[in-house]
């Protein structure tokens, strides 16, 4: 039999993949740079590694959901991201779907499986 903890790692990763995108999009109404976003998410209880977040930000930008700009006036140059118009539309749809999914899943997971 396959190692349970190995399976768990994989399943957890699959489960988190979509959630992280949603979490990031939801926090990008204000302009943020990567590390400030990590802290912001951590404050609210979602830890995400640098190695996951930074590539994700670039990917979302490539997909047109985020916009970015280098800020060079400060003590050190930083790349700032914010949500784009398209990103906002996507977020609205995903938010509605998420809330619906949570409702369904809650009733499934808490209600047990006895008919």
């Amino acid at each position: 039999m396959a190692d349970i903890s190995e399976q768990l790692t994989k399943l957890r990763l699959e489960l988190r993949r979509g959630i992280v995108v949603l979490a990031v999009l939801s926090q990008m109404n204000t302009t943020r740079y990567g590390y400030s976003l990590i802290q912001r998410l951590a404050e609210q209880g979602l830890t995400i590694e640098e190695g996951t977040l930074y590539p994700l930000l670039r990917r979302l930008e490539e997909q047109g959901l985020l916009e970015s700009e280098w800020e060079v006036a400060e003590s050190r140059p930083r790349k700032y991201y914010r949500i784009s118009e398209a990103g906002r539309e996507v977020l609205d749809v995903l938010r509605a779907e998420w809330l619906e999914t949570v409702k369904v899943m809650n009733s499934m997971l808490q209600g047990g499986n006895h008919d």
Partner: protein
Amino acid sequence: MTELIERYVHQVGRYLPPKERADIEAELRSLIQDMLDDRYPETPSQADVASVLAELGDPRRVATSYHKEQYLIGPSLYPWMMMVMRYGWLVVPMVMIFLSVFGVLISSQPPTVFNLLLEPIWASLQATFIFSAVVVLIFALIQHFDLEFDANTPFNALELPQIDDPRVVDRFKSVSGTALGTFFVLVFLYFLAVGGLTLRFNLSDPGDVIASPVGWMIVLVVAIIIMTVINIIALWRNTWTGSLLLTQTILEILGNIAMYFSVYMPVYQRIIADNSALSDVPLPEIIVILYAVITLVNSGIQVVKLWNYRSNNTAHLTTQSI
């Protein structure tokens, strides 16, 4: 301190996509500074920097996380490739062994065990390797340019063939039959042009030619051409009919007989001339009869299936319509 950071960033950069390298490197530098500021408000030591870098992880892994998922041959294409591969792995070594044994036997030097055993094995290994490489290359190109198979024919469940439907055309059999047929036609047209069998494909200098009856060679070429056309028709319509299958079978037998007179016999006589040890074995007759039996059994089974299927199905249809 910054020197260690630069070394790290440089290592990551080596594995990044060139277009984005500068931008990702700059962002990475600013991330490392942010992490250091956050964790070590006073001036961080070399060890502090090292621990932050360790947290980020192996430079190569950091770099790969910036790459998109890329495939040489993706999971949706892989089964198709393996289908072609398995077919080739079966056919290519057999064809090569046949060709190189043939080559050794008709060469002017007397065959040795080494020639007869090792050359065919080596030739088929080589050919199989080249075949596999070409197939991978073609599929990698299909993957790269994102070509799709059968994308324009929408799937209709009601048109699914019956599990035991004998009319269904085996695409790989027909495609390879067409390809092989074309190949043999070309080879025999060449034999006709130079007046006999040879393995040296050079019109102005065909080398040592084994004489072969022209009439039978023409019969063979015509039979192969008609069989190839039938294969293409079957492929085009995607069903076999009884008459097509019957014609195909008759042509195969005819081709087999033509092979006997135009290839097996002349080659056999040449071998005997060089090697009398084989003279007791009626090799050409064995090959012809074996091939004819295999053909008859194969097509016979299919014709019978086709017949049963048709009579069963018309019965089905009548009951259904009632």
